[in-house]
């Protein structure tokens, strides 16, 4: 998986000290700003849901959802600033869940009803 070079390199950046420092990148105001973005997207989502534009309705909705999802996970949950292994676990869970359940749903042929 990895060799000792990475061991040394990463060892310096992932200590508790460093992560604590990095939280400092976002200020209270920064959090509020992210929240405002989230709120705006939510508002757009809701409005969008009233205009049923056949072909792109679902894709755009899911795109907005993913952006919101990403913002909360990356900023509020500090995934962007924290050690990569946390994101690794989370993404593994998401990808596995996405993979197996999408296959399951496809095998059950539910998509034509969407």
């Amino acid at each position, binding site marked *: *998986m*990895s*060799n*000792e070079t*990475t*061991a*040394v390199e*990463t*060892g310096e950046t*992932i*200590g508790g000290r460093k992560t604590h420092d990095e939280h400092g990148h976002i200020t209270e105001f920064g959090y509020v700003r992210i929240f405002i973005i989230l709120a705006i997207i939510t508002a757009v989502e809701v409005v969008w849901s009233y205009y049923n534009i056949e072909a792109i309705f679902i894709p755009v909705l899911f795109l907005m959802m993913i952006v919101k999802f990403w913002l909360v996970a990356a900023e509020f949950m500090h995934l962007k600033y924290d*050690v*990569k*292994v946390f994101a*690794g676990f989370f993404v*593994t*869970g998401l990808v*596995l869940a996405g*993979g*197996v359940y999408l*296959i*399951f749903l496809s*095998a*059950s*042929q539910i998509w034509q009803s969407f």
Partner: protein
Amino acid sequence: MAIIENPLELESGTVVEVAERPLGALTRPSGNTGWASWLFTVDHKRIGIMYGAFAMFFFLIGGLEALAIRLQLAVPNGKILSPEVYNQVFTMHGVTMIFLVIMPLAAAFANYLLPLQIGARDVAFPRMNALSLWVFVAGGFFLCSSLFIGGWFKNVPNGGWFNYAPNSGTLFSPTQGIDFYAVGLQILGIASLVSAINLIVTTLNMRAEGMTLMRMPVLTWMLLVVQFLLLFALPVITVALFLLMFDRLWGANFFNVEMGADPLLWQHLFWIFGHPEVYILILPSFGIISEVIPVFSRKPIFGYSFMVGSGIAIGFLGWGVWAHHMFVSGLGPISVAAFSVSTMMIAVPTGVKILNWVATMWGGKIRLTTAMLFAVGVVSMFTIGGLSGVTHSVSVADTQQTDTYYIVAHFHYVIFGGALLGIFSGFYFWWPKMFGYKLNEKWGKWNFWLQIVGFNLTFGPMHILGLQGMSRRIDSYDPGYGFETWNLVSSIGSFVIFFGVLIFIINIFVSKKQAEHLPPVGPDPWDARSLEWMTASPTPEHNFDEDIVVDSLDHFWHQKYGYDDDGNVVRIAYAEDVAQDGSNDNVHLPSPSYWPLVLSAGLPFIGYGVIYNYWLCAIGGFLVLGAIFGWIFEPPDDPDGGHGHHDDHGDDGDGHSADSSDADDSAEKTDDDLVSVGADTAEAGDAATTETTATAGEADNG
């Protein structure tokens, strides 16, 4: 995973005189002798041993169930079990062997060996470790209590271990049996999930200095992969079991075909869990024999990185093959073809492993001890099981094989011939490390040969029976189909297995008796390679006297052997000189706790409660909640008030004591525990040795 390669800083701590303080129920139990010390222990080694002991108890239950099945089927039109009881017996046999025997036996080895193999003093969350043990025990007894609750064989699960819908609904299964299945497996799932989280964190975070991921023994690697499989597979079955429970107890419609529900929902959810589960069962044994074979071949494992990589590959691919259990369910040709191909692919990493074990033995100086015999047994028997597995991946063939005895033969060859034989290999190999004496080799060889012969007698003929068309799960058969001979052979074989296991149990006591007249086994009776052999046998409570600094794969071996000028391997030191003698009694260890046991005791009450009477849920809930709060407010250690760490947050200005701050550290995080191992070095700074730390600790207290 590549980033977590920072060396582990494990300091030795210090033991300070324990001053009893009247904290009532919140005092932590102390002492390490007597039955109470076992009940409340958080020592990973004792927990591992208890896992093993309870699993062996369930093994006897599951084994008796198997004998009952074979007695029934020995001759045509067997009359020993009624069809109703037969369904219950084979279901409980399967559920018991999978969830109460193989998985906990693997957990026994994981608990005992994983921290040792990475050079740690304990797991990351010792109390949670105790919790997983006791939740497993609670769940196991809950499940087995179905055998007699409401009368013998009245409310026993009877839907087979995979319990397909809609047969599992109240319409077709009106007894409480399936409820016990649904609730019991959820309780057991909690145990495994807690254990998985704990061991993952332990493996990543608690490794000794220099123990990089690619220096971890193969067993540790395989156990890590298993924990990941558990982590991600268990929630899937949890969903399925919840839905089933909702259907049966509260009239939901998830599997109610009358309401247009899709019975394949259960099959998908179950097998998305169920196939990784198969690897959860087998990978620990793969790990065990990957330790045993190199030692008794006197060669390093062949292709270490391929061994690790193929284990990881099996773990990943195991997620993409579940529908091969459903080839006859009408999935449609595309799904069937896709899953057929993915199933064939998984034979590749498995083949790599088999090859590597054989190549490890090739040209080695082989010692055929019992442990080695069992390991070779795994390689050969698992190969047979693996090959019959490949025949399942061919969906047209599988259509013929589905629900016949051919399937029964296949999975017994992998689970018994693979997983269980591997675990027996582990017993013989690590017994001296765990208990300080070797198991007798003569009895051991009888044990092995009886087991392997009995095993092949029992399950070999099932291939033929299956191809002849004998359905699995039938409770009897008429004469004249050609089933008689092989069924009789199979039943005789099952009793041979029984005697083999009996000999193992006798061997435990015989060997213990004999060991009184034998010299002590020493730290390293097999001339082994991994870190657990670097400390005394049986392992001292604190594992290692001093922290080990690892500088290579098979670090311990390289301490003992070097190369001469011609490049030949020569012994440079004796194990006794290199290994630690376990004499350091100055190591700070996590304190025992009441709460894991209390919390676990609450769960069966909740289980009986949802089935029979909600008031029982109240009792169970009270126990669980009480235990959680007790857990949170429990001092993290003996209330000695002086181990010197954690009382240095002076600047928050509220001047509370060290203990209360500790209690808060662990508050509100259900998944919190403190590893107190050598934690008190705040002032000592770079305290690397026990002595300096001890000084620092005393200075703090003074």
